[in-house]
């Protein structure tokens, strides 16, 4: 979705077996997976190699239009835009993945703990989550950045603090559901140790659903991180990040509009890939899709 803010999609109930195969068979799913894999390779490659150094100015080559040597042109200080978009991918995509991994793990831990411990722990954790959820998406993030100041790490921290609660809520609900499933009840009655029940019967299902939710949110996370960086609150110069690149290129659009297009397309493609997978997941959920 296109929201500036974090959209909180419903995690579709997906049959946990053959998920990847089903996704692959779905046309949108396949396109999304392929595009996503391509972007991931692009980001990984950009972290270790770029055709030109992404951060070092070369004033003799400033503001060159797209060419074979510089497919996206060069920026106002002569840095190769293709290299910067490539280098920025690890910060745009990587940060989004990092945030999602963090909220996934926190959500999983807090949710399962809360769902299984019940009592005071449960109430305390869930009240905390409710308060975090009472804030409109992003607003808590702005507040935390206001306290800590700008910077990529602070930004990631802010988004994690703003987002963990939703995952924790979902994980709790799912683990409560799993707890009362017949085979879990049977295992409990048979005296299977508690940690093995959690590990073997509850965790995998909850983790899968949370993982799906995280996948659906990938595009939104990229847009959030680039949005904050666009405002100068995230990635700091001279480091490239797609939102920061948009902000840098804005000044030069009158003579170098292509500088604005390249990062915008990069953001578009990564959100598109996540959306395509999302469409496939929703289709699989409905009976016709199976």
């Amino acid at each position, binding site marked *: *979705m*296109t*929201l*500036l*803010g*974090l*959209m*909180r999609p419903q995690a579709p109930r997906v049959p946990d077996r053959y998920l990847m195969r089903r996704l692959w068979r779905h046309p949108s799913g396949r396109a999304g997976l392929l595009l996503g894999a391509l972007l991931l390779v692009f980001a990984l490659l950009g972290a270790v190699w770029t055709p030109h150094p992404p951060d070092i100015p070369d004033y003799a080559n400033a503001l060159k239009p797209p060419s074979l040597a510089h497919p996206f042109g060069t920026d106002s200080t002569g840095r190769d835009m293709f290299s910067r978009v490539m280098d920025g991918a690890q910060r745009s995509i990587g940060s989004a993945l990092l945030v999602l991994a963090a909220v996934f793990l926190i959500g999983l831990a807090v949710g399962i703990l809360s769902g299984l411990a019940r009592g005071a722990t449960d109430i305390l954790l869930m*009240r905390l989550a*409710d*308060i975090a959820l*009472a*804030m*409109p*998406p*992003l*607003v*808590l*993030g*702005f*507040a935390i*950045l*206001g*306290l*800590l*100041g700008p910077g990529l790490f602070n930004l990631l921290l802010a988004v994690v603090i703003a987002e963990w609660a939703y995952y924790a809520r979902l994980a709790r609900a799912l683990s409560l559901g799993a707890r009362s499933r017949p085979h879990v009840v049977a295992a409990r009655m048979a005296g299977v140790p508690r940690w093995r029940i959690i590990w073997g019967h509850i965790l995998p299902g909850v983790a899968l659903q949370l993982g799906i939710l995280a996948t659906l949110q990938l*595009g939104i996370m990229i*847009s959030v991180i*680039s*949005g904050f960086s*666009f*405002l100068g*609150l995230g990635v700091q110069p001279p480091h490239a990040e797609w939102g920061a690149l*948009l902000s840098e290129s*804005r000044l030069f*659009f009158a003579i170098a*509009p292509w500088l*604005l297009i390249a990062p*915008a397309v990069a*953001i*578009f*493609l990564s*959100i*598109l890939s996540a*959306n395509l997978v999302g469409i496939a997941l929703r289709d699989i959920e409905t009976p016709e899709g199976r």
Partner: protein
Amino acid sequence: MRDARSPLARGGLAAAALLRIGQALVTALAASVIVWALLPLAPGDVAERVLLARGLQDLTPEEIEATREALGLNDPLIVQLFHWLGGVARGDLGQSFTSQAPVSQEILERLPATLMLLGLALVFSAVLSLLFALIAAAYQDRWPDRIIRLYTQIGAAVPTFVFALLALTFVVVGFQMGRVLADPSWSAALIPALIIGLDRAASWTQLLRAGLLEAMASGYAEVARARGASERRILLRHALPNALLPFLTAIGISIGALIGGTPLIESIFTWPGLGAYLLEALSARNYPVIQGYVLIAALSYVVASLVVDLAAMALDPRLRSQNP
């Protein structure tokens, strides 16, 4: 469905609504506690920051101590909390560090601009998505539907701020449409709101179109068809009312996202609203303003979701029994 008209059910509605309002009040209280906690959590000496923001230099420890005392920062935290909550209840959100004016007054000055822009953007996106979704549903899988689906696919993958940025640079300035340094007015809000609305409508159209198609394929649509109702009548009379409820909920969720997104939008359009006010405060670490903004945003979010929930309850009795 018949229960909905019985006195008991109406009592149920009132009770459910009261419960929901109670929850909203508790959430609002919790939100203000969290907002208050921002200040004690802030790094550095707040009293010193206040004096520096007033342009004073060469601070003596006595001056800082006096300010700390005057701001009540020496009181126990719990006293400070109740002092803050009392202030909030009276509409007093403290003084801006930089301008030294009351934050609530400054927020009230900025609020109309934001409401104007967001309100207009909401109207645009609602109207556009309604229009697009109806066209798409009426011409399912024919060319109008395909074009609209392409638009929704692209629109859903372009963040609002990117779309706004591209539209502003290439359309507004490129073709000299509208003003850059806008004073808040309906006419100045028109183009920014249209841009936001056009972008936002993409995902709403997707949602409403899916709802309409689902309703068109349902049993009662078949019944209506069997009775000889035209497709248009089925779409407008049967499918639309049924699809509106989830659509309404989606709008409710979007309001939160819109509120959270105002700083970005207002920064791109140089719109002098609350979001721009927050960004100024962020760079100056003007904590009372940040607190005020977060509180206002949280409260409006609470109110918006309350209104949406109550509207949904009124529309669909089944929701009353559920815990919202």
